[in-house]
């Protein structure tokens, strides 16, 4: 397809290709995505990648065969094998699929210890990958008869390995690695007959490819092209945009090249005219068709390797596709993948994983381009109180953005070139922020490294669960050691088989004002698996334990028996050792690295290695996973429990007065992999020395590589209960490193900001400043501010996600009822499914249910509805504060919630519009000095008694007005700065932004004070 890029598209194309001679030049590139296609009756693997020069490559890998294994029946002869092949090929399912050949190989099953024996397995090689599934089904089910031997209900081996992954495993190729096609082994497809939009197309046999391990120059990332996209749609009032009806009015695209700071393309396509934007290319179109097709051209010419954005997988991309269908231009529009002949494919899908829960999403296949939706990535990797782009950006980048409610987008679109420019600036920002997030959170580095470490293509990391990563490593290791992995029949959801988890020693609540040493087991679960050689391949079936000499086996506290390393080393311990050794190397490299890119790579790698090592244990325990083995996981936790208890016992036995120490030590708490010891010494240095000594002494008693480490001292240390503590962390005796907390109300989303703020500040005052009295004072002041209605409403907002239509909820929940109420008021701005509903608790009639008291914060603010401060005190603050202060103040902690500071309150008067009795009530003028009702028609705003203080009261009012006015001015400027224009009204109604609430509140307070001021007669 010939595309005229025009003046506006000058910066789109990739760097030009240099002269290339396949006979002389090797082709080296970083592969990013691997998939396959069937050409006729043969599968061809397609590897997409980028060269060092930034040219895009697609390599077609030929002649790699798909296969799987079954165990050979006893005495199965070559003749039987031929008969089996014939029988399979004659089976009704075999139409179009056939078994190419069957080979006999000596292999071993990974499942349970095989006493070192290899047995005959049949490798069934088939013509195309889909045939694996077909024939697997036959052999696992009804079966075939070969030479009178019935083969049915068999276990198949290595039969659920995806073809592309199979290819990578068999070639020893990790994910996102550099590969080389040596000169002379490949041929180039002439440019005229390219199937793809890639600059280079090569054909190669699978066994000619050289893999470069990710080291030195091959550890770097190729200059990938990353496109960040955001679209705007013209919705109808009150409705979420529907691609059947509402047009796409703007598309913003940002293209960056990995390793460069500035975007090479900043482009916004608009429907109808749009005023110019400095630094960006604006292209305007009169029809939506032209707009969409121009964007397709951009995709084809710029040829990005990775497509990012915020919520693109569930909104932007599906919307574009469906819009194309509605406009009936899908035949032209849906070709912006890398395969020229292949449309973008979209289907509904569901992603279920134990670690991430279930998500429904649209699965979109864009050949050769990786999609990285930052919303999904951040939801997976970070626990945040809100996942709107706005608050995520504020959290990670410290940048806010204007939040234009989708109900006013249409108004802006229908305005003039200036209003559309405004929208375009907003749209560009939405494309820019995901790009910044990728950079800031180093997503490219981390995902590339994760792909390399776990050996799966990058795209698997986002679309598949945790288990494929461990599974890929097991498959690789098994292959290298001649093992085969069985395809276990799904156990289904068997929640009943829970085993005992980690142990938690009882927490001795208190505020410890002397150093508390923490002894940690380094990588506890991986090291247990290594120390005790726990693996599928070392698990001895219970009935065969007697066949082995007792010295060669070890029976765990949970009663399962595994052979020792001396007899046979397990695969999992092998994998873990490599991971941990690699992590050590990566950390060492990280230390000496000076180049920021190398640093990023090494840091990403060591993180990926750590996560991978830790997920092996989880993989064995995942009952719905690929290869669950509860014998392993329950053994791991059993050893873990034993070790914690042993540590506790040894510490208390050794460090006491009878051994000549100052004090008896005390184990105050222990959880999973750590034990907290109070040596009762005053000096941090002394506690550290004792900790080190104890760690070394106890480590000796455990098998290698289990190691008890002394890492840190907490001083002071506030232990509230199990899994809840806070302390100042010291790793050297001279200076504390930071404050460390666990289980403290800081991330839970159903907490309001107030709780987080109060708890954090208190901890800082107590631990860092050692100022308990100050903390108490602070709490009292905050409570008093709450009761006096002086707090920002944003501190009181709680939010909950609306996961389904409000009408379909069975239970009455606050956010659901509120969503219904808001829909009645104004369907345009009411939250819909998937939105988070923000609410505050307002006062309601006595005995009203909690769900009746929720109100939209903005409605509450504009109608001046009184906040139910008692609810916040009782349900939000009371518990965390009592927990925090009980260890310090004992019973006096209750004082905090009931003292004299709670006796000044302010009750706001709802506006008449909020209904009820307010439609009828009249305000009586009261004295501005002492609040006594005034005589009717009194001219002075003061009562006789306060009259002498007139000047004082007036000046204090004036001061208040001035104060609020300047405050409001500052907030308004802030919002103008955020929207990027000082000349226009601020439109933003972001419910996530604290400034927004503050601005509204100050505005209202100002209005009230001005009314009061106006009561003084003019002079």
């Amino acid at each position, binding site marked *: 397809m010939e595309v005229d890029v025009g003046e506006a598209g000058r910066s789109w194309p990739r760097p030009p290709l240099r002269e290339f001679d396949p006979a002389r030049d090797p082709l080296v590139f970083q592969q990013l995505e691997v998939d396959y296609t069937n050409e006729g009756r043969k599968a061809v693997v397609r590897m997409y990648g980028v060269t060092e020069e930034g040219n895009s490559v697609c390599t077609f890998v030929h002649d790699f065969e798909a296969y799987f294994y079954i165990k050979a029946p006893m005495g199965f002869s070559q003749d039987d094998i031929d008969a089996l092949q014939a029988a399979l090929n004659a089976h009704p399912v075999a139409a179009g699929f056939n078994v190419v050949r069957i080979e006999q190989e000596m292999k071993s099953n990974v499942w349970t210890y095989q006493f070192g024996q290899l047995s005959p397995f049949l490798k069934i090689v088939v013509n195309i990958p889909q045939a694996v599934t077909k024939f697997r089904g036959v052999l696992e089910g009804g079966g075939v008869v070969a030479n009178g031997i019935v083969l049915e209900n068999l276990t198949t081996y290595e039969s659920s390995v995806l073809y592309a992954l199979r290819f990578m495993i068999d070639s020893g190729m990790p994910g996102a690695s550099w590969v080389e096609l040596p000169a002379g082994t490949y041929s180039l497809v002439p440019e005229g007959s390219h199937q793809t939009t890639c600059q280079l197309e090569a054909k190669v046999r699978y066994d000619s490819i050289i893999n470069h391990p990710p080291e030195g120059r091959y550890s770097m990332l190729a200059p990938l092209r990353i496109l960040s996209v955001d679209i705007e749609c013209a919705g109808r009032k009150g409705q979420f945009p529907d691609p059947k009806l509402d047009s796409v009015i703007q598309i913003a695209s940002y293209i960056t090249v990995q390793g460069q700071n500035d975007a090479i393309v900043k482009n916004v396509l608009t429907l109808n005219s749009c005023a110019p934007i400095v630094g960006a290319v604006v292209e305007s179109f009169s029809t939506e068709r032209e707009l969409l097709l121009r964007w397709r051209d951009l995709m084809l010419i710029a040829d990005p390797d990775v497509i990012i954005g915020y919520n693109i997988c569930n909104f932007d991309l599906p919307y574009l596709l469906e819009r194309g269908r509605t406009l009936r231009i899908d035949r032209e529009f849906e070709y912006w993948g890398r395969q020229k002949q292949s449309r973008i494919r979209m289907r509904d899908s569901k992603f279920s994983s134990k670690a991430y829960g279930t998500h429904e999403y649209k699965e979109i296949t864009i050949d050769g381009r990786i999609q990285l939706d930052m919303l999904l990535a951040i939801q997976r990797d970070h626990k945040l109180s809100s996942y709107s782009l706005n608050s995520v950006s504020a959290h990670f980048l410290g940048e806010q953005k204007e939040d234009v409610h989708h109900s006013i987008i249409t108004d802006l679109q229908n305005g003039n070139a200036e209003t559309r420019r405004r929208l375009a600036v907003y749209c560009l920002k939405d494309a820019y922020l995901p790009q910044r997030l990728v950079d800031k959170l180093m997503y490219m580095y981390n995902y590339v490294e994760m792909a390399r470490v776990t050996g799966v293509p990058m795209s698997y990391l986002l679309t598949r669960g945790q288990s494929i990563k461990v599974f890929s490593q097991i498959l690789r290791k098994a292959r290298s050691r001649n093992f085969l992995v069985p395809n276990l029949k799904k156990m289904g959801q068997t929640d009943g088989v829970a085993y005992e988890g980690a142990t938690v020693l009882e927490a001795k609540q208190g505020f410890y004002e002397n150093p508390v040493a923490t002894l940690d087991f380094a990588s506890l679960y991986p090291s247990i698996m290594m120390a005790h050689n726990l693996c599928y391949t070392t698990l001895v079936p219970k009935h065969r334990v007697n066949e082995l000499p007792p010295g060669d086996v070890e029976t765990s506290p949970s009663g399962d028996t595994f052979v020792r390393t001396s007899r046979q080393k397990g695969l999992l311990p092998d994998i873990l050792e490599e991971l941990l050794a690699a992590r050590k190397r990566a950390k060492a490299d990280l230390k000496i690295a000076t180049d920021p890119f190398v640093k990023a790579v090494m840091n990403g790698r060591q993180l990926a290695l750590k996560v991978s090592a830790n997920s092996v244990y989880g993989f064995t325990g995942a009952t719905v996973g690929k290869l669950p083995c509860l014998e392993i996981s329950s053994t791991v936790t059993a050893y873990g429990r034993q070790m914690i208890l042993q540590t506790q016992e040894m510490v208390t036995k050794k460090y006491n007065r009878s051994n000549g120490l100052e004090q008896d030590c005390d184990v105050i708490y222990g959880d999973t992999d750590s034990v907290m010891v109070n040596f009762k010494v005053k000096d941090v240095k002394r506690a550290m020395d004792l900790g080190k000594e104890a760690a070394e002494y106890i480590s000796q008693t455990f098998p290698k590589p289990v190691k008890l480490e002394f890492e840190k001292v907490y001083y002071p240390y506030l232990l509230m209960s199990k899994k809840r503590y806070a302390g100042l962390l010291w790793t050297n005796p001279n200076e504390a490193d930071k404050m460390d907390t666990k289980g403290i109300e800081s991330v839970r989303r159903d907490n309001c900001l107030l709780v987080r703020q109060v708890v954090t500040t208190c901890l800082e005052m107590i631990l860092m400043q050692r100022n308990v009295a100050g903390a108490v004072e602070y709490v009292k002041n905050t409570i008093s501010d709450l009761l006096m209605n002086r707090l920002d409403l944003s501190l009181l907002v709680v939010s909950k996600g609306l996961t389904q239509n409000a009408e379909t909820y069975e239970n009455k929940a606050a956010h659901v009822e509120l969503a219904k109420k808001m829909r009645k008021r104004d369907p345009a701005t009411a939250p819909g499914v998937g939105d988070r509903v923000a609410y505050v608790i307002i*006062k309601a009639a006595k005995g009203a249910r909690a769900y009746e008291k929720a109100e939209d914060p903005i409605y509450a603010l504009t109608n001046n509805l009184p906040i139910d401060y008692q609810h916040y005190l009782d349900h939000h603050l009371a518990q965390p504060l009592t927990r925090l202060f009980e260890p310090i103040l004992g019973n006096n902690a209750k004082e905090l919630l009931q003292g004299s500071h709670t006796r000044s309150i302010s009750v706001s008067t709802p506006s008449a519009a909020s209904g009820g009795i307010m439609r009828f*009530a009249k305000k009586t003028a009261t004295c501005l000095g002492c609040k006594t009702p005034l005589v009717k028609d009194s001219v002075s705003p003061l009562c006789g008694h306060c009259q002498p203080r007139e000047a004082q009261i007036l000046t204090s009012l004036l001061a208040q007005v001035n104060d609020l006015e300047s405050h409001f001015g500052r907030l308004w400027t802030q919002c103008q700065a955020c929207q990027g224009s000082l000349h226009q009204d601020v439109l933003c109604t972001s419910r996530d932004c604290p400034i927004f609430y503050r601005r509204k509140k100050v505005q209202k307070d100002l209005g009230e004070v001005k009314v009061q001021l106006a009561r003084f007669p003019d002079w």
Partner: protein
Amino acid sequence: MFEAKLIQGNLIKKIMEGLKDLVTEANFDLSPGGVSLQAMDSSHVALVALMLRGDAFENYRCDRPRSIGMNLVNLSKVLKCAGNDDTMTLKADDTQNNITLVFESQAEDKYAEVQMELMDIDSEHLGIPDNTYDAIVKMPSAQFSQIVKDLSSIGDTVTVSVTKDGITFSTSGDVGTAHITCKQNTSMEKEADHTTVNLEHPVTLTFALRYFVTFAKSTSLSHQMSISLSKELPVMVEYAMGDMGHIRFYLAPKIDDEESMDDS
């Protein structure tokens, strides 16, 4: 200085009965004329206005008008110290932020003094302007109390309609429907037992029943109560305490599809 002595200390207890379920904290306005209170309930659907004239007290002294804030839950707790026949004296110093309550038995053999911290409540002073009503019904307090109690076990809302013959309370619920009509009746010997209807225009209004139940807690204050209704106005339920003062409750009528919070 504020000081007020009441022979029937018990009266304050009775008043609190009617107030404390509606309002948790409120400002009492002390003035040379008497003690008054105007407060809205926390759901801002009802408003209560209390008036106790200075003359009603045995001794009454108020040097300057003043507003004092009290937590009514705490006040009720304090009042438990008083015996039913005790006299009660309230004392508040203008410069102090507390109030002293003194309870003395009639026989003068028991003397209790309680000091309570005051609150500083910053709120608007609200009132319902005096109106002329389309219909005013007077009826025995106990009868009204019984009617709302009976109806509240059937439904959530009550429709009150007044015609020249009498007043009808109706409700409906899952159980069924109920109508209770009280006809004009002046045949009783005591005037307090009479039911009288003073009608300008017939009127029908609907209210949340649970507020009526709360209002009826003031039954012990007076034998007879009155209900004043007008279209487009809140209902006024009044318990007059002879010359001493009154307590009035105002309740906004229900409008369909509004205030769904009152549905429960």
